[in-house]
Every structure is written in structure tokens, then in C-alpha cells.
């Protein structure tokens, strides 16, 4: 009987799992038995049919897809968004093992804090010969402008991650210290939510430690660092092109912090300020997700386009807490791991509770001798590399791959530039491959955050799962999946939410200023989405007529030409390129405000874009196109609904709304100017009513056929018609009046004044006075509002 047949006949999934010989496994102990934390999960999996399992796991995948969880991958000169590769089986660890890990990593975090305080302070470690000068002075991550700068609040490090692996003896080893700007904590949260969808009952009853408490503690710690009531915490991102931008936006939304780019900030009188639509607002705590070198083009990397000139001045003045301090990347230097074990007894008064992988800096003769003595167990790399040993971009050399003379020469001539590390193997954990559980190597990423009470450790994290059965750490370079990590207790764990505990000091969360960049993007998002809708309406009307009249109606179809010209549309394609461009631009704008834009609306926007692109090459003119365009119109209406029903009426919503109203006002004015002109062909008025989506209203309000007067009345002057020009201007007036500084004790801003004048002119107009020229003039004035808005709020 073959393995597959046995499986098909109902052999439990867990029974067919075979760990690799000589390699420790997370689930199966040396005795061949399933370890206690895993038993419940395996019983659950064994009880499910293939169909049930597929259905449950699909819920997790669906969640990730719906929330738009992605990361960006670079290659071949372009970057693409990739769906998050979640492994469907979590990694389970027992609570008592976890607390030993937490203890050891807390000690390591303290050690790293002591080292960095010395590297940017007295430099005793180099002076006393405990660290080689070359590792510091030659290190591009050692940022000279930070030397002598005392961090606000006294600490350099606030948020750390450690990469761990379990060696052949079953002990955990630290593979890499992540101190620059560790990513992945947000993905860990998303992994967890996805897993709870797949294993909802099991999770609820499974004594699994929750992650929310860790995030709550860190959020509160950052807010406490902000100090006074007006103090603000913000997250600094390199921007949407960064590979983990999704996570930056996600964490910002989850914790209620403002997401900023370097250009959103200015430094004035040595304080870091956000350029917001409400004016300049101070920032006291910055959780940075960009590398330190990019933070200030004036004093750090001058080529940086994502930094803030003057950031270093604010840090020198001690007015901002940086999480982590600029320059903390120096601790990621691989050769430093050769020295940490010796430094621990002095700096934390104890030997390392968890070793790091054996490391030799080849700048000394004794280290070179050790490497030469046993090259088979060594990998070599640049001494100053900050990559983790399983990073796909890491440039590793297996020492044994070099002929002995070449190795000796390389070590003797450039030993100081080289680091050797033991080639480690990892433990395995079950992964689901084609319906079967198979062992895959894994590393564990654990997060620590500083609070007022000291370091707190995330009870979970994420595990990287290798793509093949090869358990050597280098094999992880080939990529793989990410898995959730469950810390399983003996007793039930209390549910935790993000809400601050009642006992903690109450501190009202003040909504931070809306960054000007975010307001700008929301405004344009509103404009692009509305413009896309206008194009869809027009094209639909065109193809409906084409379907009704065929070529016979050529005369009537000519009436569209001025509109097409005006909007830059080539009518030969039922889904014009202009529409696709506008959708892409809308996604671009939305992509830069993901922390403020609902995930549902984001998914819906992508969905429309996908549909439109799929339709473009396939749709035939006439009826087929009209139906396709109707489908797109319904989807667009869905987005409007999501935004307008669900988005909180913060000032950001106003900019989005203003963009939409502005664009619709421009479009309607042009529509009427073209179609209500005396020279317009017959049937143009009916077309105006149709494109203006007011056929039924016209029939109800006017018993007679459409005339220029009725059309102008209904589509320009009627305040109750939501598609009329007047309605847009009313809306603009209402929104603009509520913008910051629109009305200062009766003194109107230039923008508010211009809108008020438009409003007055339109309210006193009649169909005769609204000539074609008057309509074009109105359109021009509406267009001018965009410049006034830009000048006032996004200079």
C-alpha cells in the first residue's frame, strides 16, 4: 500500500509526519511523540476532512486578500506587490520555554543598549581594546554626527527583533540582532488574525497568549514619552515604494499614530514639526522605519530624498525621541557578534543566557587559525555586513568552497574585512504541502519593546519557513513562507484589547494634525475617482446609443466628439486608456494614505482597476460595452458608499469630498457648455440629461420635452439635484467653510471667498444668463479653486 493510499483511507495527518533524521523538530520530540503544546492542534487537524481543512484555510487566505496584506519585491529594475506568503500551520511553543527565551533576549537587549551607549558615548570598549577600532571607525552604520548626542529619555533602543534558530542540540541560538528598524511586527499581527479565521474554535480555547497586550504596552510607552498633552507620536516611513510600507500603514492605523514621510516634517527652532493642514504641529516621538543614514540629507547621506533636513539638529537639541536612535544599525554588524559573549559579563554582569552563533572576526591571527583549521564548518562574509545569514541578498562564501591556499591568502591579506561564522542547521516545523504535513526548516523572529517597566517581549512573533527540506540556514535564502507563532500556556489566557487599562493614567488621544501630503492625496483621490466615474458615464451613454441606432445614428454620435476631445478620450476603445490612467492615479493617491483609507475601499478600488483592465481588450462596442460599463459604474458607486458611509468626518474626509465635488462641478460645467450650446446637434440635450444621470428627475419636473432652459435649470441651477452644478458648489461651500483657518472671525480665506462668490453668482443666475461663455467662465473659476486650495493647505 502506498503512502498516498493510506492517507486517502483516513490515516490521520499527524501520523504521516516524519521529522528529518538528526534534526530537531518543533512538533515531534526525540522520543517520537508529539510535544504537549501541539497535541490539540494535531487532534483538530486529524479530525478534519480534506474539504473541511481546505475550507477553513481558505478563510485565512481570504482574510489576507481582503485586507490587502502585501509586501513589495524588487528585481529587474522594477518592484511588484506580492501577496503575503502565510504558512497555514502555526509554530507552537510551550509557555515555559518561551519565558526562558524572553529572559535571555531581555538580557541581550540590555547588553546591546550598553554597547551602543558606549559607541556613541565614551568609546571605552575600543579604548580598552575590547572592540577593534576598525569595526567602528570603518563602519558605514556608525553615524558620526550622533557621537556625543544624548538620546532624549536616556535610551538609544526601544524596539528590537532577534532572529533565532534551534541548533542540533535543541538549544536556541541568536542568528541576528535587528536593531535598525525591525520590520514584521505588523505582519505578525496580520498572521495572527488570519490564523484565528482558520482555527477559530481551537484558538479561542487553546490557551494561546494574545499579542494585543504587547502592542498596547508599547503604544502607551511611546505616548508617555511624548510627555505633555500636545505631544505627538508619529511613524516615519520611507514611503509607498518601501517593501514593507503596507506594514507601516497598518501599524499606524492599529495604534492610532500619524504616518509621516520625511517631507512631511520640518525642523523649526530645533523642534521637529509636521506640516499639517492645521499649521505646524510638533512631534515628540518618532518611530522610524527608514534607515538612519537617510534621516537627514544635510548631515547624513546627502543623496537621501526621503529624509528631513535638520533632523540631526532636533536630535542634538534633545527635543525628539527617536525609536530607535539614529545609528542603531551599527549593532547589526555581523562581526560584532564575535565580541558580545566576552562583553556580557562586564556590561550585564552575567554570561549570555542564550548564545549567538559562533563568530570570528578574522582581523586577529588566532581567529584566522581557527577558520583555517576547520573550514568545513565555516561561512565567510564581509565583516561589516548587517544582513542576516539567511537573507537572500547576503553574500556568503562557504570557506570549504575555496582551495586552502586561496582561503589562506584571503584571510591574511584582508582578514580585518572578513567575518567567519559557523554554518548552522535549524530545527524543522510542520508545513502543509499538497495536503500533507512535511518538515521544513524555520527561524524565529522575536520582538522586544521598551516600556517604563523595562523590556516587554511579544508572546509570539513570526517564523520564517524554508522552501525545501534542507535544514541549513543558508538554504533559507531561497525564500519560503511566514508562519504565526503561538505561545501555549497551561491555563486559559485572558482576552486583551487595545484599550488602555482603567487603572492607567487617563490620557485622551488627540487626533494629530492631518499632514499636508495626506490631505493633498485625499483631494486627488477624490478627483481621480470622480473623473473615472464621469468617463464611465459618458462612455456608457455613447455605447447605449450605438447599440440602439447602429451606424444609422452617426449624426447623433457626433455630438459626443467635443466632449471626448475635452476629456482627452479616444472613443475607439470602449474602455479608454484615459479611464485606466485615472484608476491607476486614484490607486496611487490612495496608496499614499493607506493609514487613513479603509481597507475595504482599498480592496474595492483594486477590484475596479482589475475589472477595467480585464475588460479593456475584450469588450465589443455597443451593447457589450454598455453592460460592462454599467458593471464598472456599480462598483464605483460601491466605493463612494464605503467612503461616505464609513469614513469618520475628520478633516481628511473633507479633502476627499472637496476633490470629488470639485471634479464633478468641473465635469458638469463642461458637459453643459458643450451640449447646451446652440451649435450642438439635435439630441444633445437628451444626452446631457442622460450623462447627468437625471432622466427620471427631468421627466418628473418638466412635462415637456427637454429644452435648453429645462436642462440648464435641472443640471446647473437646481440645488436639490445631487448632480447639478449648484449642488456641488453648495457642498464645496459647506466643506470649505469647515477647513482649518477658512474663517477667522469673519475674515474669509481666499479660497472661502472664491467659493462664496461662485455660490452667489450661481444662486442668482437663470438659464438665459448662463450662456455657453458663462458656463466656460464658471468652469475656469472652479478650476482656479484647486490652486487656491493647494496654496493654502499643501504648499
Amino acid at each position, binding site marked *: 500500500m502506498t503512502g498516498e493510499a493510506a492517507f486517502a483511507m483516513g490515516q490521520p495527518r499527524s501520523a504521516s509526519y516524519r521529522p528529518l533524521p538528526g534534526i530537531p523538530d518543533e512538533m515531534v520530540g526525540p522520543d517520537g511523540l508529539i510535544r504537549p503544546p501541539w497535541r490539540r492542534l494535531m487532534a483538530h487537524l486529524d479530525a478534519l476532512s480534506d474539504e473541511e481543512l481546505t475550507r477553513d484555510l481558505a478563510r485565512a487566505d481570504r482574510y489576507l486578500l481582503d485586507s490587502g496584506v502585501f509586501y513589495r519585491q524588487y528585481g529587474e529594475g522594477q518592484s511588484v506587490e506580492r501577496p503575503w506568503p502565510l504558512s497555514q500551520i502555526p509554530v507552537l511553543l510551550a509557555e515555559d520555554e518561551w519565558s526562558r527565551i524572553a529572559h535571555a533576549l531581555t538580557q541581550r537587549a540590555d547588553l546591546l543598549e550598553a554597547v551602543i551607549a558606549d559607541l556613541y558615548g565614551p568609546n571605552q570598549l575600543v579604548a580598552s581594546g575590547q572592540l577593534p577600532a576598525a569595526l567602528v*571607525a*570603518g563602519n558605514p552604520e556608525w553615524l558620526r554626527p550622533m557621537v556625543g548626542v544624548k538620546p532624549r529619555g536616556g535610551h538609544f533602543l526601544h524596539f528590537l527583533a532577534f532572529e533565532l534558530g534551534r541548533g542540533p542540540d535543541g538549544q536556541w541560538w541568536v542568528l541576528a540582532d535587528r536593531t535598525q528598524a525591525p520590520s514584521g511586527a505588523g505582519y505578525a499581527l496580520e498572521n495572527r488574525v488570519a490564523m484565528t479565521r482558520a482555527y477559530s474554535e481551537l484558538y479561542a480555547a487553546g490557551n494561546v497568549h494574545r499579542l494585543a497586550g504587547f502592542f498596547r504596552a508599547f503604544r502607551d510607552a511611546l505616548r508617555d514619552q511624548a510627555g505633555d498633552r500636545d505631544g505627538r507620536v508619529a511613524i516615519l516611513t520611507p514611503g509607498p515604494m518601501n517593501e514593507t510600507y503596507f506594514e507601516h500603514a497598518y501599524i499606524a492605523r492599529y495604534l492610532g499614530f500619524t504616518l509621516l514621510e520625511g517631507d512631511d516634517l520640518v525642523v523649526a527652532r530645533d523642534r521637529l514639526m509636521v506640516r499639517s493642514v492645521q499649521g505646524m504641529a510638533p512631534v515628540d516621538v518618532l518611530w522610524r522605519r527608514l534607515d538612519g543614514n537617510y534621516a537627514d540629507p544635510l548631515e547624513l547621506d546627502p543623496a537621501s530624498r526621503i529624509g528631513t533636513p535638520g533632523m540631526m539638529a532636533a536630535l542634538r537639541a534633545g527635543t525628539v525621541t527617536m525609536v530607535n536612535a539614529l545609528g542603531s544599525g551599527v549593532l547589526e554588524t555581523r562581526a560584532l557578534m564575535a565580541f558580545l559573549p566576552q562583553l556580557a559579563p562586564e556590561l550585564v554582569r552575567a554570561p549570555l543566557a542564550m548564545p549567538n552563533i559562533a563568530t570570528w572576526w578574522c582581523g586577529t591571527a588566532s581567529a584566522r587559525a581557527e577558520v583555517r583549521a576547520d573550514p568545513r564548518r565555516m561561512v565567510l562574509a564581509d565583516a561589516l555586513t548587517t544582513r542576516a545569514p539567511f537573507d537572500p541578498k547576503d553574500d556568503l562564501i562557504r570557506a570549504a568552497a575555496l582551495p586552502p591556499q586561496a582561503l589562506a591568502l584571503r584571510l591574511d591579506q584582508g582578514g580585518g574585512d572578513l567575518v567567519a561564522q559557523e554554518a548552522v542547521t535549524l530545527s524543522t516545523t510542520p508545513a502543509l504541502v499538497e495536503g500533507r504535513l512535511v518538515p521544513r526548516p524555520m527561524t524565529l523572529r522575536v520582538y522586544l519593546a521598551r516600556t517604563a517597566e523595562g523590556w516587554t517581549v511579544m508572546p509570539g512573533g513570526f517564523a520564517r519557513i524554508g522552501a525545501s527540506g534542507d535544514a541549513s540556514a543558508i538554504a533559507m535564502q531561497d525564500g519560503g513562507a511566514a508562519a504565526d507563532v503561538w505561545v501555549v500556556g497551561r491555563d486559559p489566557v485572558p482576552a486583551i484589547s487595545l484599550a488602555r487599562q482603567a487603572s492607567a493614567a487617563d490620557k485622551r488621544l488627540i487626533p494629530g494634525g492631518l499632514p499636508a501630503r495626506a490631505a493633498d492625496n485625499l483631494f486627488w483621490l477624490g478627483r481621480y475617482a470622480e473623473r473615472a466615474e464621469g468617463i464611465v458615464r459618458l462612455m456608457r451613454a455613447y455605447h447605449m446609443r450605438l447599440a440602439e441606432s447602429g451606424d444609422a445614428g452617426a449624426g447623433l454620435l457626433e455630438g459626443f466628439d467635443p466632449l471626448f476631445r475635452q476629456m482627452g478620450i479616444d472613443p475607439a476603445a470602449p474602455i479608454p486608456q484615459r479611464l485606466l490612467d485615472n484608476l491607476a492615479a486614484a490607486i496611487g493617491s490612495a496608496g499614499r494614505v493607506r493609514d487613513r483609507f479603509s481597507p475595504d475601499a482599498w480592496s474595492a478600488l483594486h477590484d475596479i482597476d482589475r475589472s477595467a483592465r480585464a475588460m479593456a481588450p475584450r469588450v465589443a462596442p455597443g451593447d457589450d460595452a454598455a453592460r460592462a460599463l454599467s458593471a464598472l459604474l456599480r462598483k464605483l458607486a460601491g466605493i463612494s458608499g464605503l467612503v461616505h458611509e464609513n469614513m469618520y468626518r475628520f478633516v481628511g474626509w473633507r479633502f476627499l469630498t472637496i476633490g470629488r465635488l470639485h471634479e464633478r462641478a468641473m465635469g458638469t460645467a463642461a458637459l453643459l457648455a458643450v451640449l447646451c450650446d446652440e451649435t450642438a446637434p439635435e439630441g444633445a440635450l437628451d444626452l446631457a440629461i442622460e450623462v447627468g444621470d437625471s432622466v427620471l428627475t427631468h421627466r418628473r419636473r418638466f412635462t415637456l420635452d427637454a429644452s435648453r432652459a429645462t436642462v440648464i435649470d435641472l443640471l446647473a441651477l437646481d440645488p436639490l439635484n445631487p448632480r447639478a452644478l449648484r449642488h456641488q458648489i453648495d457642498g464645496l461651500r459647506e466643506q470649505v467653510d469647515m477647513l482649518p483657518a477658512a474663517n477667522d472671525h469673519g475674515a474669509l480665506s481666499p479660497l472661502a471667498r472664491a467659493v462664496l462668490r461662485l455660490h452667489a453668482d450661481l444662486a442668482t443666475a437663470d438659464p438665459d444668463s448662463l450662456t455657453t461663455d458663462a458656463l466656460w467662465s464658471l468652469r475656469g473659476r472652479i478650476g482656479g479653486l484647486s490652486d487656491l486650495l493647494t496654496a493654502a493647505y499643501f504648499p
Partner: protein
Amino acid sequence: MLYRLRLSFRYDFARPTGAGRQLLRITPADLPGLQEVQQTAITVTPPPVERSGFTDFFGNEVTQLVLPAGLTQLRFDMSGRVLRHGDETELDLSASPASLALDLAEITDLGPHSPHHFLRPSPRIPHVPAIADFARAACAGAATLRDAVQSLGRAIHAHMRFDSVATEVDTPIADAFAGRQGVCQDFSQIMVSGLRSIGVPGAYVSGFLRTVPPPGRPRLEGADAMHAWVRAWTGAEAGWCEYDPTNACFVGADHVTIGYGRDYGDVAPVTGSMRLAGSQSGSHSVDIVAEE
């Protein structure tokens, strides 16, 4: 020698600027025993919104400015009086090339003048194989590091032609070396690259040259603009020595030092960020007059 210095930078902007931040490194350095600043002042026109100063990692004095928006012209003027003592030593205490590594290994200081900062490639001075080969050939047979410094400096001076328009401030040193022409910045950065490639710590020095030479001596190249030269670490005993490859001479009383760095980027006289909508043009002028 007592010098009266005048330095001015002028910029014209085609369209009014946005607000900006500037760092100036144009104040002469106080160097005990070598150079004494008796008086110095910087004026900014129009006046800045904010003005402050700090000392950077390498000990250079930095003036920090926040400028208002809407400028069409901008001007920085530095004036000062500096007493410069020539370093007239002829005695060669420098180490032999072979013993330099041992001397370096003994140095565990990471202060601004530690040679360790100047050994590795820096942002504007990468490792260039052609320069490394050139340096090895030029220094072959040098008994002492001071000899090596002089040999390399002379070789670069022979290889390169001074041309004030052949290169830009951002021309890579490999291009300037291959084109065999450039200004003092190119000469100096190429020499620093060569020194580092043979294991000698090399720093970049920014400063001035006296405009009118002493009677009977020729006018030196680079005197009508800011100048640059090289600092080389020649062992624990001799420490740093300074060499001007543009003029093929050791540095003495004709030079006035502003500051030290790994390359031009660390001591650029004006570093700024400003929102510009149109083109900008700029010029600078220097006047160094000996008073006695």
C-alpha cells in the same frame, strides 16, 4: 604669518526659493601650535530666520542657518584674521611602510584625529583600482611614509593638469583621474584614494592659500578660490603630515586650514536644502592678504 581673509559666496535664483536650511563650514580652524584665529565673522544677506552653530565630529566649526522663503539672491561673507605658523620641520620621523600596520593596531582612540576614520573608502572616495595601481607604482621603494606621501603627491601632480572647468564638484574621482585634469578637490581626493589603497590613512583638508605669494616666489594654483589638500598619517611617532598635490609641496605657512574630513562631503563649505523652482547660479571669491 598673519593673514586677513575674505570669502564670499553669492547665489542668484531665477525664481523665488522656498524656505531652506544651510550648513556653512567656512570658519578657519583654531589649531594650537599651528594656526590661531584672532577674529572671524560671518554675515548672511538677507538675514536668516534662525542662526546657530555647532562643532561637528571632526572638530570643524559649523554655522547652521534657516533661511526665509522667497529669496532671489543670497550671500554669505566670511571675514577674519588668522595667524598661521609654518611647519618647517625637515626631520623625517615617519614610520616605514612595513611597520605602519603595527603602529595602527596600537591606536585605540576614536577621537576626531584618530587615523582609523581615514582608512576605508568614504562616500566620495571609493576604491579605484587604477588609482591603487598608480599609487603602488609611485610609492614603490619609498623608505619612509613621508617619502611615500611626497612620491605619490609628485606623481599625481605630474599626471594631472590643473583645469578649473574640466570637472564639477560631483565628478567621480575615477573620471577625473582618467581625464587627467581637474581642480584641487580632484587632486586631493585622488591622492587620498591612493594613500588609502596602500594602507595609509588619508584625510581631506579644506582651506585657503595666500593670494599673493611672498616676494620672489611664484603664485600658487588655486589661490583665487577655496583650496584643498591632503593629510596623511605616517605612524605613531610622526603622526599627521600635510601635502598639497595641486602644488606638489608640503603644507606650510602659505596655507590656512578650515577643516578636516574623510572627503569633500565632510567639509563642503556650503551644504543646503532648499526648494527651488527654477535655475540657480552661484559664484565664490576669496581674498587672502598677508599683513606682515
